[in-house]
């Protein structure tokens, strides 16, 4: 029988070495993202019954475990999803907020300069320079509307790019996750279970954090050690060894725009509405930004552009120019359209290019719903009935709506965008300064007739926008304020979510992070243990020598 002191010393030497190795690994990975502190679980070996008593038999290293708390880790994931939601939202909204309220780049100064130029024209109606100034400022205003529309458009295509990036990132991560699940549960790699394969588990947690930045998830651990991943609304992303692809798909509510869907079976995709993904990572942020804040801004800018254009067209046509010709349209408008939000029929929309009467331009957007009795028109998102008709074509508020193709069924809904594209399409239709109708029509009384110029200058003071409830400047200030309020809210909530994310990370790191002081202390401790074990070995050796010496004696 071997000397038990020798084997005990050996076991101590082994475990001390294992502990030293683990400590070194902790030190080495102190800055590795996602690394979880490891430690060697030591167990005393079962004692041996020798000479009528139980004698200890050394120590063994049971396993190397991670200092890990799944609750804390899941908290990091969920706070990360919310924090990145607001960060991404802010990132996408801030440039527009800045642009809209800028005292030079915003629309307000351009509207005012146009008004000023008209006021100048009212004093020198026959002055070519004053006329040219009006045209120059009208062009400046139109170009600024174009510029704002272009910026909104670029924010939209930026959002499309972000959606694709998010989708790709999620798909890549879920594919890798399936592979990691497979390796973690693969028996031939060694024992399975949540305590095995620490580095693979770290990698998987890292992946899950990465997904959380893109979209909010729930992770459900399985008995075999694999992780199933679901989106916050229950849609599966990874189940066992299968990943379900996320993709950008046409929205069912509006086939003209995209949304995000998840594969839910062969050839079947479940798509999301933005409201399903509020607070849910960058993906949720991009979808909500694009479909709510940006769309709302786009619609309001278009409504403003269309109203301004149509009101000035109306007034300009009532005047007469220096050549004695009746005024023509001053600005061009966009292309009104109907979007089928439910059903298969396509509708056409015609909107007058000049306001029927002051403050009555139907800037929209409107909701049209088909019922058993006919068609009902409402302001978008409003319940009050504006007009109804038994059949199409219907004419309401100056808007003509007709069937373009297909058949309308009861229950179908449409969004009537009467001002669509107005800001982008706005152009000044007059190039010759003499064609400005500064005089009152229908016949020219004299070059000094400034009456129509006076009236046009006054249009900026009249309540022409938003169904005659606001001036054009007020309408613009209103949309800037409403966008800014959303940004302010995103900033405030975002700061709170950042703080929660930081706390969650700190709490997780408190358990799982590497503290170098602690590791230094452990290094000394295990070094001493190693030295002591070596001493035991040496003693065991010398004991053996003593016995040999006796035998030789």
């Amino acid at each position, binding site marked *: 029988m071997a000397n038990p002191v020798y084997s005990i010393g050996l076991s101590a030497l082994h475990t001390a070495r294992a502990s030293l190795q683990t400590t070194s690994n902790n030190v080495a990975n*102190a*800055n*590795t*993202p996602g690394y979880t502190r490891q430690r060697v679980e030591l167990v005393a070996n079962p004692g041996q019954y020798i000479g009528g008593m139980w004698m200890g038999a050394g120590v063994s290293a049971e396993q190397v475990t991670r200092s890990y708390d799944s609750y804390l880790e899941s908290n990091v994931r969920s706070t990360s999803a919310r924090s990145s939601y607001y960060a991404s939202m802010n990132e996408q*909204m801030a440039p527009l*907020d*800045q642009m*809209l*309220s800028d*005292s030079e780049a915003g629309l*307000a*100064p351009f*509207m*005012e300069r146009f*008004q*000023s130029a008209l*006021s*100048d024209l*009212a*004093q*020198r109606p*026959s*002055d070519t320079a004053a006329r040219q100034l009006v045209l120059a400022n009208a062009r400046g205003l139109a170009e600024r509307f174009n510029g704002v529309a272009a910026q909104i458009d670029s924010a939209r295509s930026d959002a499309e790019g972000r959606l694709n990036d998010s989708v790709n990132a999620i798909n890549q991560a879920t594919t890798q996750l399936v592979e990691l699940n497979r390796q973690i549960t693969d028996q031939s790699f060694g024992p399975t279970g949540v305590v095995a394969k620490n580095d693979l588990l770290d990698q998987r947690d890292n992946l899950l954090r990465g997904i959380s930045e893109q979209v909010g998830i729930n992770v459900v651990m399985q008995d075999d050690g694999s992780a199933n991943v679901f989106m916050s609304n229950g849609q599966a992303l990874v189940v066992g060894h299968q990943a379900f692809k996320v993709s950008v798909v046409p929205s069912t509510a509006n086939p003209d725009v995209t949304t995000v869907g998840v594969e839910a079976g062969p050839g079947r995709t479940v798509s999301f509405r933005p409201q399903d993904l509020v607070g849910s990572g960058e993906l949720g942020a991009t979808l909500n930004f694009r479909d709510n804040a940006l769309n709302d801004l786009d619609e309001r800018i278009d409504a403003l552009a269309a109203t301004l254009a149509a009101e000035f067209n109306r007034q300009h046509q009532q005047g007469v120019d220096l050549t004695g010709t009746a005024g023509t349209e001053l600005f061009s408008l966009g292309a009104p359209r109907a979007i089928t939000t439910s059903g298969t029929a396509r509708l056409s929309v015609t909107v007058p290019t000049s306001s029927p009467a002051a403050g009555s331009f139907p800037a929209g957007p409107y909701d049209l719903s088909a019922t058993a009795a006919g068609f009902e028109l409402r302001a978008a998102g409003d319940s009050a009935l504006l007009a109804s008709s038994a059949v199409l074509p219907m004419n309401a508020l100056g808007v003509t709506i007709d069937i373009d193709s297909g058949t309308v069924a009861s229950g179908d809904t449409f969004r009537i965008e009467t001002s669509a594209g107005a800001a982008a399409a706005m152009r000044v239709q007059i190039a010759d300064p003499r064609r400005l109708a500064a005089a009152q029509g229908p016949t020219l*009384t*004299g*070059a*000094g*007739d*400034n*009456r129509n110029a*006076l009236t046009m*200058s*006054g249009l900026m003071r009249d309540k022409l926008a938003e169904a005659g409830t606001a001036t054009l*400047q007020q309408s*613009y*200030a*209103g949309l*800037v*304020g*409403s*966008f*800014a*309020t959303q*940004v*302010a809210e995103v*900033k405030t909530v975002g700061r709170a979510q950042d703080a929660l994310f*930081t706390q969650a990370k*700190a709490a997780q*790191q*408190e358990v*799982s*992070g*590497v*503290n*170098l002081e*602690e590791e*230094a*202390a452990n*290094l*000394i401790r295990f070094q001493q243990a190693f030295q002591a074990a070596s001493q035991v070995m040496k003693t065991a050796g010398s004991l053996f020598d003593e016995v040999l010496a006796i035998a030789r004696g």
Partner: protein
Amino acid sequence: MRTSHAQFFESSSANFALNQARLQRVVDQISSGKRMLTASDDPVASTHVLLSERAKAMNTQYQRNAEFARDQLTQGESALGDVTSTLQSARELLLSAGNSSLSNADRRTIARELRGQMEHMLGLANSRDGSGNYLFAGYRDDAQPFVPTRDANGDITTVGYVGTQDAVQYEVSDTRDMSVRTPGSTVFGAAGGTDVFQMMLDAAVALETPVSTDADRLTMKNALADATNRLDSSLDQVLTARTAMGAGLQELDGWTATLELEAVQQDRRLSELRDLDYAQAATELSQQQTALEAAQSVFARVSQLSLFDMLR
């Protein structure tokens, strides 16, 4: 509480970033002089700023309009002053022409003088402003409003009015369009009222007609009396127009004062809404600076503390 090595560095650098962002914000505020850097900093105030800035700009425009209106009124008023004195000297001529001791030749001389005054009057009625537009032409201000026809000798036989009968208005505030030009038809009676030129023409023709009989004399006397009456009502007519212009100038003074006052109020309001409180900003700047420096020095010291240093 355990703190992890990575977390210590991560949270330290996050804090530095936050401190620096705050510092940068104060620096941006100070360099722009503005409290709000974007609308979302204070959406409600930003909306008011946007509208107040426009109101301020329009105020400037209205002040410019008022200046221009004043210019027009002053020029019109001064022309009408000359018209009044011309009419008064014409009246003296008419009175002197009534003297029974005058010969036909004397009356012809007076008539010539009267015609000279009529030419002067025509010039005044066709006065132009600094931009070359006619002051008494209504809307047709690019064409001479009072057009004479002349006989072979160059004497005026009729004076026609080709302007319009409209009073031209300018906007001097959000709510007020003011008449700044009275049409010549009103002042000189080309359409209703007393036709000043016809009155002077009639008087000149009466004086140029030789008198030989008592009947002739009576006709001439009656013509002169009639002309004097018409001249008096012409004077009233011009005076009414002048008075209206004087009232207009007074009203303009009122508007200018109101606009200037509004501009001051708008400036104050804009300043309250938008401008930075420099004292507060300076305090915050030094606070943020101190905070950043403190965080830096704490980090520099704490990060040097390591048990590993003791293991050497």
